[in-house]
């Protein structure tokens, strides 16, 4: 399985069209491997992006240097997915025990 340790989902709040375009420009930088969970389209609509641990610092610097506000929506994607897997395993074990 793909491992998402250290990856974060950032919620970006563009305040004008220029900031939307600056975030959109990240889409073209394929080496950053940013996964857009919601698309950069309109002012006032938050944009959620999943960023790898390796590129996290540079993306945050990019946003901050352009005065684009953001918050951390998910601090560690893998920990959420681990919990999801654990829950599925627990349920499967219960089902097996019952049958």
């Amino acid at each position, binding site marked *: *399985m793909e491992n998402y340790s250290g990856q974060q*989902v950032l919620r970006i709040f563009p305040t004008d069209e220029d900031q939307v375009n600056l975030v959109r420009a990240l*889409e073209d930088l394929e080496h950053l491997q940013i996964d857009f*969970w*919601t698309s950069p*389209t309109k002012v006032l609509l938050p944009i*959620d992006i999943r960023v790898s641990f390796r590129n996290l610092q540079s993306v945050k610097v990019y946003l901050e240097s352009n005065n684009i506000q953001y918050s951390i929506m998910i601090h560690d*994607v893998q920990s959420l997915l681990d919990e*999801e897997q654990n829950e599925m395993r627990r349920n499967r074990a219960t089902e097996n025990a*019952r049958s």
Partner: protein
Amino acid sequence: TDSFNYATYHTFDEINAFIDNLVNENPNLVSKIQIGSSYEGRPLNVLKFSTGPNRPAFWIDTGIHSREWVTQASGIWFAKKIATDYGKDASLTNTLNNIDILLEIVTNPDGYVYTHKSDRMWRKTRSPNSGSLCVGTDPNRNWDAGFGGPGSSSNPCTETYRGRAAHSEPEVKAIVDFVKSHGNIKGFVSIHSYSQMLLFPYGYTTARTPDHNELNTVSRNAVNALASLYGTSYTYGSIIATIYQASGGTIDWTYNQGIKYSYSFELRDTGRYGFALPANQIIPTAEETWLALTKLIEHTRDNLY
């Protein structure tokens, strides 16, 4: 299916076993139609809830984007709900005495299996792209409705890659062929996550559909019904006005095919967990969505055209 755990996420094989069990338990109400095969050869199964021949139909699909797990899980819950409530709930019984309900739970099976085995965050299909190492097409940009326009990408390495041609993906083509051959589908709902929205055409153009006002009113009633259970707030409106421009989308195509009552949901949440919605939210999500779906289905049933 009584002992099936609706409050957890399931694999493709488990969902198919559920489908077969539901059909076996309700042979006079539920049947399974295979409308095609995915790129990797998996069956594209549709559940048909029907009490008589030659009826108009209402289509629901979940999981066209594979990582949106709460949608497939909700689809399972809807299937059980329909089978359980027929003959008990007056409105649903009236519905199924007049129209069929068609439900495709795993609309992108290759992607769904891939999310379980390799990459939980996979969204697209799994078909290869000639000349590129990047795999997959966005099946919600692959429809022949403004295909290739803004809000879709020509780059196979992006999440919104439109594909080499409209209906290039077998998962999309199977629905296209089924809808055309059926010829009597009156309502169509394609279910996604996340953002808590109820959307209607268009997504590829700013032009309003001739039915804009009616779709808007029905959507308002549906989101009010949804909110009545747990207070979950949904926004609603045309895709382009509410969320963003997106070309080649499912419900723009179905609307242009003459299916007036075409809608799309974005289920929970609004951005705490996103695609990794905890399993303890599956049943509440399905329950509240069912209330909205019921409004859409009832309006279609009562306004056949």
